[in-house]
């Protein structure tokens, strides 16, 4: 898809800190990316890279978890969400921005029926009558392809399978026609065949409603499947940003290339390509480039001294690597 929509979400220099036993720890630093109307932006990274904290920061949910945001702006539909109080944020969360999380069953209340919970969301935000909200709920469940929606709306979460629960969550997230959907590992807990169906559904709904999606995943395959543009995160920073085609054909950051090489590929024999070492914990990030001690291209005095900014690496392509212009990195071979 070409991105011609208006700028919807502009995350600029987002920094989030949490209070740990040894003082404030920076979980996410200087994260910037944009989401345009109707666009699917993929946020990819390993556990601890800061993807989820970034999404919580966008939603203003880090305060509730004891976090603070010393820098950064999150401009959504022209308003900087960082400056808003909880009351104002609540008018945006769930209404203009829908959310889907990894564990649908944990996000649903076991004591209420699926339909009651969706209708409640609609009534909370729009103040319409019970019967109107219920009618809309059934329509929504039908839209996410839940069979016999009127009957299923009266069932409880435990009567739904994982895939069905996630559909119900998507219906709830879409209930107030948001312009942005934040989906945090929405299919990670599902079987592959169910995952494929849910991803198809999300694509279908995106095309139908034009909702923009911030799609968070650790799975490069899922990101390649869904995203128009991608931001790769490592150790709390965005290390590379590009269109999905650019990124997978010619990655410009050694970490991105390493992640792609680590995906098992047919015909490569039994030896997989590993990235040596471990993902550093927040608070223990190395100086300079945070990837330098695992990077085969790292050079002393250049990579391990100063904080490295995101550098231009092509058209609408940025990479947080001082050697970007010198390296020839391999992407995913396209047949």
């Amino acid at each position: 898809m070409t991105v011609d929509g208006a700028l919807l979400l502009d995350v600029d220099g987002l920094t989030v800190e949490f209070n740990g036993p040894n003082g404030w720890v920076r979980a996410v630093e200087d994260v910037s990316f944009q989401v345009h109307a109707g666009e699917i932006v993929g946020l990819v990274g390993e556990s601890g890279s800061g993807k989820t904290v970034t999404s919580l920061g966008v939603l203003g949910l880090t305060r509730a978890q004891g976090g603070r945001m010393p820098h950064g702006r999150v401009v959504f539909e022209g308003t900087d969400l960082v400056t808003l109080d909880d009351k104002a944020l609540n008018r945006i969360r769930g209404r203009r921005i829908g959310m889907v999380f990894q564990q649908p069953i944990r996000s649903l209340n076991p004591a209420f029926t699926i339909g009651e919970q969706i209708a409640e969301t609609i009534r909370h935000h729009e103040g319409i009558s019970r019967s109107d909200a219920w009618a809309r709920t059934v329509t929504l469940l039908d839209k996410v392809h839940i069979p016999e929606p009127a009957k299923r709306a009266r069932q409880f979460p435990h009567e739904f399978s994982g895939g069905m629960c996630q559909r119900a969550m998507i219906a709830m997230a879409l209930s107030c026609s948001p312009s942005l959907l934040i989906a945090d590992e929405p299919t990670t807990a599902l079987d592959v065949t169910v995952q494929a169906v849910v991803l198809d559904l999300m694509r279908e709904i995106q095309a139908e409603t034009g909702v923009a999606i911030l799609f968070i995943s650790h799975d490069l395959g899922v990101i390649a499947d869904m995203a128009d543009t991608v931001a790769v995160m490592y150790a709390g920073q965005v290390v590379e940003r590009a269109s999905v085609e650019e990124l997978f054909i010619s990655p410009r950051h050694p970490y991105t290339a390493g992640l792609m090489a680590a995906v098992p590929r047919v015909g490569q024999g039994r030896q997989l390509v590993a990235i040596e070492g471990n993902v550093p914990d927040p608070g223990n990030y190395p100086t300079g480039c945070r990837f330098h001690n695992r990077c085969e291209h790292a050079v002393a005095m250049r990579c391990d001294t100063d904080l490295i900014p995101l550098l231009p690496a092509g058209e609408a392509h940025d990479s947080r690597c001082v050697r970007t212009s010198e390296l020839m990195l391999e992407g995913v071979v396209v047949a």
Partner: protein
Amino acid sequence: MSLLEAKHLTKRFAVKRNLFGRVTEWFTAVDDVSFTVEQGETLALVGESGAGKSTTGRMALRLIEPDMGEVRFEGEDLLALDGPAMRKRRQDMQMIFQDPFSSLAPHRTIGEAVAEPLLVHFGMGSKERLAIAAGLLDRVGLSAAVRERYPSELSGGQLQRVAIARALTLEPKLIVCDEPVAALDVSVRAQVLNLMHDLQAERKLAYLFVSHDLALVEVIADRVAVMSHGRIVEEGPSAELFRSPKTEYTAELLSAVPRPVPRSLRAPATTLG
């Protein structure tokens, strides 16, 4: 003679009981499953959750007693063995789990944890035990400092290396690996799989590799058995099975795996072979 030969394995679990404790409804987790594992090879059991792969893996080690069927290890009928004889046989067969943290005692150092099987099976002295453990930890790529640490101080990838070292202490011939890398990050996953592969070549180990990850299995397994609803629906050499799946189910499963190639650049999907 195969290293491991499982024949007609069946396991049912009780779902409902009546007032008198009599079972009124059964769930058949594994239904008439047969397979063999040869010395030094990797057989992967793949399938979606609930397919019965983990139950099958555990029955192969007699960690779960099958209701019906037969398990032979080097020709010996495992189900006929009594307690002491089975315990002795267990030296040859080990298991690695998905979550290494929950399979290690939190209050015991890594060195002690790896050395423990030697105490249990041979009553070996502490010094000798720890020396062997040190050698194994070194072999799986962990530094000497790790020996004195506790499980909570290590990362997931390091813990899985510890679990592998511990599985190796008794020099087994077969290791059943139940989703051994599913909880690890992509960049660390390859390290652990490479280690497992090197150890296999070095020690002629056989792996029964239980996984839901088809992309992974395609690369690391010699043979693959696809399970669905408690049955093996298709089995064959890895390369062949992935190139031309013979059942609708396998083809569907394969096509559902998201490949790391952007949608707009994909070749048309491969068809049923």
